């Protein structure tokens, strides 16, 4: 045991950690707390008699306030009928994507201090509206997965589980995970120009799925199989390369690169026909 030495090792941020505790731990620094106005685009399809409208809520900002905290406070104290979706509230499940000041992103990890005092919230466009800020991304994602056959097609559906696993190049595994990090939040589709025009467009999320399986040596499918599901204008050839998907992806997935790569591969398939 030589734990005594621990004290001697210079911790790079000891000074900051001790003296600057307030600023490092309180995400809001020492800013003066503001009065916020949150305007929400409201509509409940179950009550079609009430037309879509903006409704404003006023509340006091708190230190470290996220839109998760703010919206829950509004619902608890001001308006119990306000609909929105949160699950993990940690930026990993993709439930809470909405249009915040005109830009689709995750609400749970959006700190109010990074926004002005007037905040405008709207549901993601394109997806079926459930009510207010809640949209049915789950239904669309399932449909997309079914169309693209978005699951690994195994060589042997009943491998001998007593035996050692098949080996995989560590770098390939990392590359697959890189694309597997998608949380299906729907931001890429909500920001997509093609999706505005083509209701069956598979979106960056769909093309990224296909790219992920194509990269995976465990999947038995060929480019022909992938061409069959994305080789048309609702798939890879519908993309106009506006690349808003790449800009808004909350997980920073390399969507532009993946779409370009898949298009090259699929064009090759088209010429081969």
């Amino acid at each position, binding site marked *: 045991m030589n734990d005594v030495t621990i004290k001697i090792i210079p911790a790079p941020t000891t000074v900051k950690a001790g003296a600057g505790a307030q600023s490092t731990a309180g995400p809001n620094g020492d800013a003066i707390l503001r009065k916020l106005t949150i305007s929400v685009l409201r509509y409940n399809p179950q009550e079609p008699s009430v037309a879509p409208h903006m409704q404003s809520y006023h509340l006091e900002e708190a230190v470290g306030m996220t839109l998760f905290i703010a919206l829950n406070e509004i619902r608890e104290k001001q308006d119990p009928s306000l609909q929105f979706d949160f699950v993990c509230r940690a930026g990993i499940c993709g439930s809470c994507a909405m249009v915040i000041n005109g830009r689709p992103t995750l609400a749970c990890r959006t700190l109010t201090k990074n926004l002005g005092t007037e905040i405008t919230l709207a549901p993601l466009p394109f997806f079926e509206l*459930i009510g207010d800020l809640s949209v049915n991304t789950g239904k669309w994602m399932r449909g997309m997965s*079914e169309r693209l056959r978005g699951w690994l097609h195994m060589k042997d559906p009943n491998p001998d589980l007593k035996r*050692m696993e098949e080996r995989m190049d560590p770098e390939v595994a990392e590359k697959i995970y890189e694309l597997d990090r998608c949380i299906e939040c729907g931001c890429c589709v909500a920001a997509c120009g093609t999706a505005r025009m083509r209701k069956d467009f598979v979106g960056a999320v769909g093309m990224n799925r296909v790219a992920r399986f194509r990269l995976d040596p465990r999947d038995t499918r060929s480019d022909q199989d992938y061409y069959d599901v994305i080789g048309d204008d609702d798939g890879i050839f519908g993309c106009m390369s506006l690349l808003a998907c790449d800009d808004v992806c909350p997980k920073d997935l390399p969507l532009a690169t993946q779409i370009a790569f898949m298009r090259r591969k699929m064009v090759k398939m088209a010429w081969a026909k």
Partner: protein
Amino acid sequence: MKIVYTDVLVIGGGLAGLRLAIGAKRRGHEALILSLVPPKRSHSAAAQGGMQASLANVIKGQGDNEDVHFEDTVRGSDWGADQKVVRMFVNTAPKAVRELAAWGVPWSRVRKGDRQVVINGQKVTITERDAAQGLIAQRDFGGTKKWRTCYVSDGTGHAMLQTMSDQAIGAAIPVHERTEAIALIHDAGRCYGAIVRNLITGELVAYVAKATAIASGGAGRVYRVTSNAVICEGIGSALALETGIATLGNMEAVQFHPTTIFPAGILVTEGCRGDGGLLKDVDGHRFMPDYEPEKKELASRDVVSRRMEEHIAKGKGAKNRFGEHLWLDITLLGEQHIKHSLREVYEICNYFLGVDPVKDWIPVRPAQHYTMGGVRTNHTGESPTLKGLFAAGEASCWDMHGFNRLGGNSVAETVVAGMIVSEYIADFCDRIENDIDIPTSLVHEFLRREQAKVDTLLGGHGTEDASAIKARMQDVMTAKVGIFRRGADLQAAVDELQQLLVKSRNIGLHDRSRGANPELVTAYRVQKMLKVALCIAYGALTRTESRGAHYRQDFPRRDDVEWLKRTLAFWKGEGDTLPSLAWEALDIGAMELPPGWRGYGAKDYIDNPETPKRAAEIADLKTKMNGASRFALQQALMPYDELLPASFRGRNERIDEPLEATP
């Protein structure tokens, strides 16, 4: 009246529920999943660090096997676990990881040759074997003797859930998203399905099934400060409890995770410490070795969380405007490692704290994290009291975690239990005598009863505020049923929770719409959550000892004479305000590993006179069988093989333990 029929009704679309449904479907039974949210958004996705399975591929895992995993798990549980179930689990875990590897999980893989790691605050070079190249890698985690935790960067749960959910889609398993079971249909000790509310339209529908399985996760949200997702409200457990027939086991066993960011309670993985991160106090002093010289930061979670709170109580916490906390320092791991293997941690610190963990320390404090208790089942996953009701994963008390779960054993349990229990569900559905013939009048009665409850809330004249009751419940649980527990506080908690339960029967709503209505949802859920909270608080009050995560300051010793038993909670009458408790003894005479010191934490406990007898028996047997294989010895000590479904029996191959060429 709308009735949906299926063979297997699975409540919950996380890892356990998905694997249950896939298993049942593979055996030819129709399975249908109910889920509050799209399955890929389930709380399983939040498991960051990894899944324990004794593959022994990395050099620091060499020598690992089922025996070592078994001992770690039983010690972690503070001898509260069912040791036969632990054996079933550790033998199936490697098969589960390998199955997931075949199904698509991009497990992080071993690179042969030298690599630098941080162990005990020091940079060390280790050399991976050529034979391990490309096999699944393992990292270190708390409470384990070997590096055993298989991982996908720090998005393990996410990657597992993606694959599992994809395979469920591939198997054409229907998932009814945004639906919520609000009551189980049962008669004469047999479960027949559930009454289900559509969260979009508000419609109630009856789902009738041969077998019903609860896989709805934990109950973290009965606490104010928790790492759990907002959907983890213990409703599945409450449904079982409300039958008055099924029981909940060990609800007082609640785990607090050492490192959640302060004050938001968002988890940063145990992998931070497993990979070499250190806990530091206000002075920048690494304090864990002072308390736990053996395992330091990597003692079990209950022990580390208690030591942290103890250290804060000594005035060693750092302070910010929200209160006191400690620091997690991962700067020594380096930018490359943090941005690749701890990437979610990097994002969480960045977005929620404005902290760059490559350079800065992370403010952390323990928060509620895991519900060891749940629907009590036997080894097949079925309720011993309510036929046709099964449970798996965090919602269950199977019971492999006892009073403290090891990191990496929860996602492992979801999949392993999903595999094993689905086979038993399929066996159950195969038996002709389990076909059901309930009259629709019975189904209708349940539907009418539940509709009446909803109507009362919507049309009644109640005056209590649902959100206020929920918030008060959460505050009481966090303040009085937390890491350190005392009789007086627990009694006060039980008293107040009972008052809140009475109040919750008089809730009035502002919003009376029948469709999507968040206030209505809070109203009916809080009535159920309070029952679960009461099982926790009352169980904790009654258990006058300290075991695992249940720590009584007024009874600080583990008491194997009085308390080597599992708490069972029943809810007998609908108007009751307290559960009825019963206890199920654990048989030392049948244990493979009799109680002792865990290897970390308190060394002081009250020994049961049966313990030395059993220890002597075991020592004797070991002497007699000197030279026998570890398999033969294990078989002699505590046979369990026949408890596993035939398809999951058998040894696991390792680099150092090749299987014979012919089976």
